[in-house]
């Protein structure tokens, strides 16, 4: 029966012999001198029988067999390996898809075996792989020592296990080897990849560069660096091309996927920027609070000395209100700068959402608020005031996006870190409470979305937005070890998602008691007031004296320690600024505590309570007051410390 046959061997003598032999038997024969041309022929030619030499340069016989077996139209082709190595190595050629193996040797013997194998190919059942090597009877002694084989296998394991993609290409840029990673990177099956044109793998814009580089190699390795990556199958790739200066002049190409690395780098850069702005914002807020403190103190003093009927009384109370607004602004900045949580306790987010949204709804009648709050929501560990600020900022933001009215949908649910998959974050595993805030407003473009959490970025007209609302939301959520992201498209709804870590702690009485309106309480104790800012010292001294206290002053840490040492019996309480040059509040506190273990100290700062302040409090410090404080707040703080046992 006439057969279509392909013979692949790199030796012309073998090809000629096989062609002669098979044509004499009236078969149709094509020959190929290597794997690449064989694959090329197989694109249009479907042989019944294929003879494959095992040892060939570039694509070797074993690989070629595997590829052929993977091609649907050739799965029934009868595959015969030509080699002596198979016998020598004890190679199980059936494993890579061959039906038979013929040992190379004198042509008369080979002729017999070839014809016998062809005969076998007629009789075999489909899929039946024979395991007999024909002609292996001692004709060919050791071809390859086992040692060398193990070296070759060793390198193969390394190549296949590498994290980089490795390709080998001919001078014509045809691919003759591809390790598993490079196959994955190109997204092409191996049988297509091998023999295909290397440069054509890349997008057209990159081809010229790669081609030029291959042309100008002159025996030296070439690299396409991370700064100018090429695009391969949607990935950003760094290439290194290493010429193999042997007779075949092939080139090994090392492919490194840097898509993820570049994305991380960009993200890191952005995070770094936000951190830097945060530090700056925190610093400004601190100085600003000190200024407000000065204004507040002066006003407090004036108000203490005039009756409510005085013509300036109303204006002064107005100024006091404005100072309070200013202070709120700085506390948002501090929130963004993540300068700490105030009081952290287990709270019920549902309750906060309900309360704040009802209050908010009353001020914005044109907005319909929908609540989809999960029952049995995990409690979260958070500062109630800060979370309220987050909620209000999100409501305001949503409402401003719906100037003509619309729907505001608030949803809470219990989730795990798995829900954040594919986001920018690498969340800590565990339970989270997810709050989604969706509005049916104008949406935003990508440019806006990128900058949405940047401080001082606002799309609102001059005078309406500070650009701090969402920045502080971001800061607060970060400070609570939470995550926030936003989804929006221009003209469509916008959704903010906030993930806050759930806590195992039981929910306590949820609402903090509202601020008690204490009357100014006078006293007659002696106070050591420590601050490095003259303006603060001046007004605070006046305020304290007006309240009836005797005041000692220190303008720095060392001075404070000296004065306390001399007057420790007289001094009832120390009001201590936390941030001072040379010797900071923490150090001063420790020194004072050495002098008198029972000392009473009220810590004050233009920063809100942060890690540093909390540490001092943990070491026994009696209280904390945030600047700017008014007379009432100050007198209340002092009394509660002095009167405590």
């Amino acid at each position, binding site marked *: 029966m006439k057969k279509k046959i392909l013979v692949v061997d*790199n*030796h*012309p*003598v*073998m090809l*000629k*012999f096989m062609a*002669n032999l098979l044509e004499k038997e009236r078969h149709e024969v094509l020959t190929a001198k290597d794997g690449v041309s064989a694959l090329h022929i197989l694109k249009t030619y479907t042989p019944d029988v294929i003879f494959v030499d095992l*040892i060939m*340069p570039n694509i070797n016989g074993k690989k070629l067999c595997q590829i052929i077996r993977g091609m649907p139209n050739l799965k029934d082709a009868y595959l015969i390996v030509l080699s002596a190595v198979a016998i020598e190595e004890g190679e199980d050629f059936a494993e890579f898809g061959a039906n038979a193996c013929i040992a*190379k*040797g*004198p*042509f*008369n013997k*080979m*002729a017999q075996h070839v014809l016998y194998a062809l005969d076998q190919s007629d009789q075999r059942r489909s899929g039946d792989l024979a395991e007999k090597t024909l002609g292996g009877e001692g*004709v*060919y*002694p*050791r*071809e*390859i*020592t086992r040692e*060398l084989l193990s070296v070759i296998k060793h390198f193969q394991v390394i190549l296949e296990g590498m994290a980089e993609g490795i390709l080998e290409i001919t001078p014509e840029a045809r691919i003759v080897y591809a390790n598993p990673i490079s196959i994955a990177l190109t997204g092409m099956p191996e049988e297509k990849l091998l023999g295909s044109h290397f440069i054509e793998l890349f997008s057209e814009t990159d081809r010229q560069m790669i081609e030029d580089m291959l042309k100008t190699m002159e025996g030296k390795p070439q690299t396409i660096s991370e700064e100018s990556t090429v695009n391969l199958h949607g990935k950003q790739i760094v290439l290194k091309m290493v010429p193999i200066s*042997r*007779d075949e002049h092939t080139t090994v190409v090392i492919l490194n996927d840097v898509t993820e690395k570049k994305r991380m780098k960009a993200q890191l850069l952005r995070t770094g920027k936000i951190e830097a702005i945060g530090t700056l914002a925190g610093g400004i807020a601190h100085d600003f609070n000190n200024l407000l403190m000065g204004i507040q103190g002066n006003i407090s003093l004036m108000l203490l000395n005039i009756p409510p009927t005085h013509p300036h009384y109303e204006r002064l109370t107005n100024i006091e209100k404005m100072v309070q607004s200013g202070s709120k602004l700085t506390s948002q900045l501090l929130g963004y700068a993540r300068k700490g949580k105030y009081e952290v306790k287990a709270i019920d987010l549902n309750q906060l959402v309900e309360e704040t949204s009802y209050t908010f709804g009353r001020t914005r009648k044109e907005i319909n608020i929908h609540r989809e709050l999960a029952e049995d929501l995990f409690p979260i560990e958070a500062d109630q005031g800060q979370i309220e600020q987050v909620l209000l900022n999100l409501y305001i933001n949503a409402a401003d996006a719906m100037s003509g009215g619309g729907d505001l949908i608030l949803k809470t649910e219990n989730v795990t870190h798995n829900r954040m998959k594919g986001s920018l974050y690498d969340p800590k595993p565990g339970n989270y409470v997810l709050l989604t805030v969706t509005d049916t407003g104008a949406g935003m473009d990508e440019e806006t979305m990128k900058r949405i959490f940047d401080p001082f970025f606002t799309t609102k007209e001059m005078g309406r937005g500070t650009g701090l609302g969402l920045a502080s939301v971001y800061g607060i959520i970060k400070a609570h070890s939470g995550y926030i992201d936003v989804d929006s498209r221009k003209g469509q709804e916008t959704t903010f998602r906030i993930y806050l870590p759930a806590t195992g702690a039981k929910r306590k009485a949820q609402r903090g008691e509202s601020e008690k309106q204490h009357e100014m309480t006078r006293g007659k104790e002696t106070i050591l007031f420590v601050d490095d800012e003259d303006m603060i010292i001046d007004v605070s001294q006046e305020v304290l004296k007006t309240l009836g206290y005797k005041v000692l002053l220190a303008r720095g840490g060392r001075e404070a320690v000296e004065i306390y040492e001399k007057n420790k019996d007289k001094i009832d309480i120390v009001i201590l600024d936390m941030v001072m040059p040379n010797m900071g509040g923490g150090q001063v506190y420790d020194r004072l505590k050495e002098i008198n273990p029972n000392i009473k100290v009220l810590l004050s700062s233009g920063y809100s309570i942060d890690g540093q302040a909390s540490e001092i409090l943990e070491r026994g410090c009696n209280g904390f007051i945030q600047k700017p404080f008014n007379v009432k707040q100050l007198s209340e703080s002092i009394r509660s410390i002095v009167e405590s046992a």
Partner: protein
Amino acid sequence: MDFTKLAEDLGLDEDEFWELVELFLETSASDLGRLQSAIDRGDIQQTVEAVHSVKGAAANLGFEEIYELAKGVEEKARENSLDGVTEPVRIIKEKCDLIGEMFRAMPV
């Protein structure tokens, strides 16, 4: 060397045999050139590949002396050594040249 007998042993008619010999000579000339330059620069891998090619074809055509010599060189090279391979390679060349002369002396 009795080429008529050799051809007979291989089950080939003489025309076919000489055709294959001609191809062998061409390929081996290039293989041997490759082999010499590989040995000169101490390239083991290339030495193995070149001499392996000569060896295979020699075995096919029943040139046993060439086969044995080439096998010796290959085994040596596979043990990472090129010591003393120059002499066998020289003899292989001589043998090939001899076959070449006989080929050219053939009545056309």
